[in-house]
C-alpha cells in the first residue's frame, strides 16, 4: 500500500513538476483501404480512421480525469501513405487531405504517417510521392510527414538524402509566411521505428497489427526536481536517482496505456520512455543537464551528462513497463525546450554540439531553425551526417530543421504552442554539393552482417 508521502509526491510531480502523459497515440493500418483510385482510397481512409479512433479523445480525457494526471496529446499514426497510393502516387495528397479532415473530426492535434520508407532504394512511385510532400504540408494543418532514408542493415540511400534537401527547402518556401513551419512537420530518419508515438515522426509500421495503442510519457521537470535534492551526490548516485524517478514516471504511462488499450478494445503496444520537453518553464531537458553541474547546456561535458541521463531513464523505464519501444530516450528539440532556446540565443549551444549529443540520445537534430538561404546540398549533407551517426551506432537519428525563409543568424522564429520558438542557428557554409550530387547508396557497415 502506498503511503501519504507517496500520495503527496505524485501530486507534486503532477502539479508542480509538469508530470504528464505526453501522448496516447493510436496506430492504425491503412492497408485495407487501398482502392482503384485516389478518391475512393481517400474516402476509405477517412472512414476507417474516424471509425477506429472515434473513442480515442473521450477515452483519454476520461482517464485523465479519473487518475488526475494530464494527458496532453491524443494522436493517430497510420501506415506510410506512400504504400497505399503506389498505384496513383501523384495523387497521394488526396489521402493526406483526408487524414487532415479525419484529424479535425477526431479533435486531435497531429496525425503522423504521410511517410515513405526509402532506406534501400527509391521506387518510381515513392519518388512521385516525395514530390507531393511540400504541397501536402503547406495545405494541411495537422498531418505530419516522415521519410526513412537509411538503416544500419541497408546503408544510406543518398539519392533520397539528396532529394530530401530539396523537399525541405520547397516546404519552407511554401510556408514562408509562417517562417517555414511546414518543415516542423517533416522528419528525415535513419533507422525509423515502427511504433513511435511522438510527432512528427510517428507512423504505423507494416509489421504492426491492425491497430495498437502506444503511449509516450514525459517528465523532465520531475527528473530536474529530483536532482535538485542531491546537489552534491556523485554521478553514480545521481544516475540511481534518475532511474528511480524514471520508474515512477513510466509506471504512470504503463497504467494509462494498458487502461486505454482495454477501453478502446485495441492491443497495447509500447510505452515510449522518452523525456520530452516543452517550452514551459520547469519542463526542460537542458535544465536537467545544467542541474547536473553544467553552467549552460552546450558546454563541454554536455554529451557525457546527456549519455548518463539517457541511459538512466531507459534502465528505470524498462523495469516499469511490460513493453517499451518507440524512440525511448531524451529528446533535445531546440525550439521546444526553454533551456535550449536560451543557450542557443547566447550562442552557448551550436549545431555541432547538438550533432555530438545525438550520438548518445534520442533522436536527432530536432526543431532547429537555420538560415533561410541554406542550400539544398547543405540540408542534404546535414541529413547525411545524422543518418551516418544512426547507421553506424545502430540507433534512430533524425533531422527536423527549418530553413526559415528570409531569416538569418540573429533573427528568431516563433512557431507557437508546443513547437515553441528558436533563434536562427548558424550552419557551416562550405559546399558539400559535389559529395551530395554523387548519389547512390552508402553501403551498410560491416557490423550490420549479424546473421
Amino acid at each position, binding site marked *: 500500500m*502506498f*503511503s*501519504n508521502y*507517496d*500520495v*503527496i*509526491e*505524485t*501530486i507534486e510531480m503532477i502539479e508542480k513538476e509538469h508530470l504528464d502523459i505526453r501522448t496516447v497515440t493510436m496506430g492504425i493500418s491503412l492497408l485495407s483501404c487501398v482502392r482503384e483510385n485516389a478518391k475512393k482510397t481517400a474516402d476509405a481512409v477517412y472512414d476507417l480512421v474516424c471509425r477506429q479512433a472515434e473513442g480515442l479523445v473521450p477515452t483519454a480525457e*476520461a482517464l485523465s*480525469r*479519473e*487518475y*488526475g*494526471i494530464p494527458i496532453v496529446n491524443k494522436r493517430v499514426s497510420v501506415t506510410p501513405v506512400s504504400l497505399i497510393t503506389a498505384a496513383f502516387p501523384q495523387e497521394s495528397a488526396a489521402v493526406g487531405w483526408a487524414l487532415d479532415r479525419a484529424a479535425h473530426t477526431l479533435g486531435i492535434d497531429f496525425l503522423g504517417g504521410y511517410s515513405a520508407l526509402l532506406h534501400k532504394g527509391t521506387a518510381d512511385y515513392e519518388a512521385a510521392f516525395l514530390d507531393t510532400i511540400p504541397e501536402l504540408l503547406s495545405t494541411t494543418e495537422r498531418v505530419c510527414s516522415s521519410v526513412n532514408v537509411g538503416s544500419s542493415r541497408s546503408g544510406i540511400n543518398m539519392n533520397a538524402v539528396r532529394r530530401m534537401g530539396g523537399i525541405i527547402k520547397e516546404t519552407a518556401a511554401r510556408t514562408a509566411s509562417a517562417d517555414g513551419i511546414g518543415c516542423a512537420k517533416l522528419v528525415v530518419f535513419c533507422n525509423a521505428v515502427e511504433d513511435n508515438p511522438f510527432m512528427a515522426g510517428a507512423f504505423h509500421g507494416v509489421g504492426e497489427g491492425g491497430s495498437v495503442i502506444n503511449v509516450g510519457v514525459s517528465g523532465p521537470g520531475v527528473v530536474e526536481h529530483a536532482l535538485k535534492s542531491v546537489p552534491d551526490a556523485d554521478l553514480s548516485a545521481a544516475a540511481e536517482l534518475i532511474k528511480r524517478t524514471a520508474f*515512477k514516471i513510466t*509506471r*504512470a504511462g*504503463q*497504467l494509462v496505456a494498458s*487502461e486505454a488499450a482495454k477501453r478502446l478494445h485495441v492491443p497495447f503496444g509500447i510505452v515510449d520512455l522518452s523525456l520530452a520537453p516543452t517550452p514551459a518553464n520547469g519542463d526542460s531537458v537542458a535544465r536537467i543537464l545544467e542541474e547536473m553541474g553544467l553552467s549552460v547546456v552546450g558546454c563541454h561535458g554536455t554529451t557525457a551528462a546527456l549519455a548518463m541521463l539517457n541511459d538512466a531513464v531507459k534502465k528505470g523505464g524498462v*523495469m516499469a513497463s511490460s513493453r517499451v519501444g518507440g524512440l525511448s530516450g531524451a529528446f533535445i528539440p531546440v525550439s521546444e525546450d526553454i533551456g535550449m532556446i536560451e543557450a542557443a540565443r547566447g550562442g552557448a549551444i551550436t549545431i555541432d554540439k547538438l550533432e555530438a549529443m545525438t550520438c548518445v540520445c534520442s533522436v536527432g537534430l530536432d526543431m532547429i531553425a537555420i538560415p533561410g538561404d541554406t542550400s539544398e546540398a547543405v540540408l542534404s549533407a546535414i541529413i547525411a551526417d545524422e543518418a551516418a551517426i544512426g547507421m553506424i551506432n545502430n540507433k534512430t537519428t533524425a533531422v527536423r530543421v527549418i530553413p526559415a525563409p528570409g531569416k538569418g543568424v540573429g533573427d528568431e522564429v516563433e512557431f507557437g504552442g508546443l513547437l515553441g520558438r528558436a533563434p536562427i542557428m548558424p550552419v557551416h557554409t562550405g559546399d558539400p554539393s559535389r559529395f551530395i550530387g554523387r548519389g547512390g547508396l552508402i553501403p551498410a557497415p560491416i557490423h550490420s552482417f549479424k546473421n
Partner: protein
Amino acid sequence: MKAVVTVSGADRTGIIAVVSTYLYENGINIEDISQTVMGDHFAMIMRVDLSGSGKDIATLAAALEHKGGEIGMSIRLQHEAIFDAMHRV
C-alpha cells in the same frame, strides 16, 4: 472502486465538514483519514470507497474540485491505481 481524496490550502473552519458532507451525500465511505495543519496550511488525505456511489469517478472529482473552489481549497479525487502504479514495484 477505491480512490484518494487530497485537500490542501489555507486553514479555515469547516473544511472537513464540507468534504465529508459531500462524501456522505454521495454514498462514499471514508476508510482512512489523515489530516494535519502546518503553520496555517491545511493538508488532508482520505482513502475512500466509491462502490456505494451512483456517480462515476470523473463526475465526483469535478464536483469536489468545484466544492473546493467555493471554500478556497484545492480538492482532488483520484483513482488509487495511479498511486499504486507509481509507488509499488
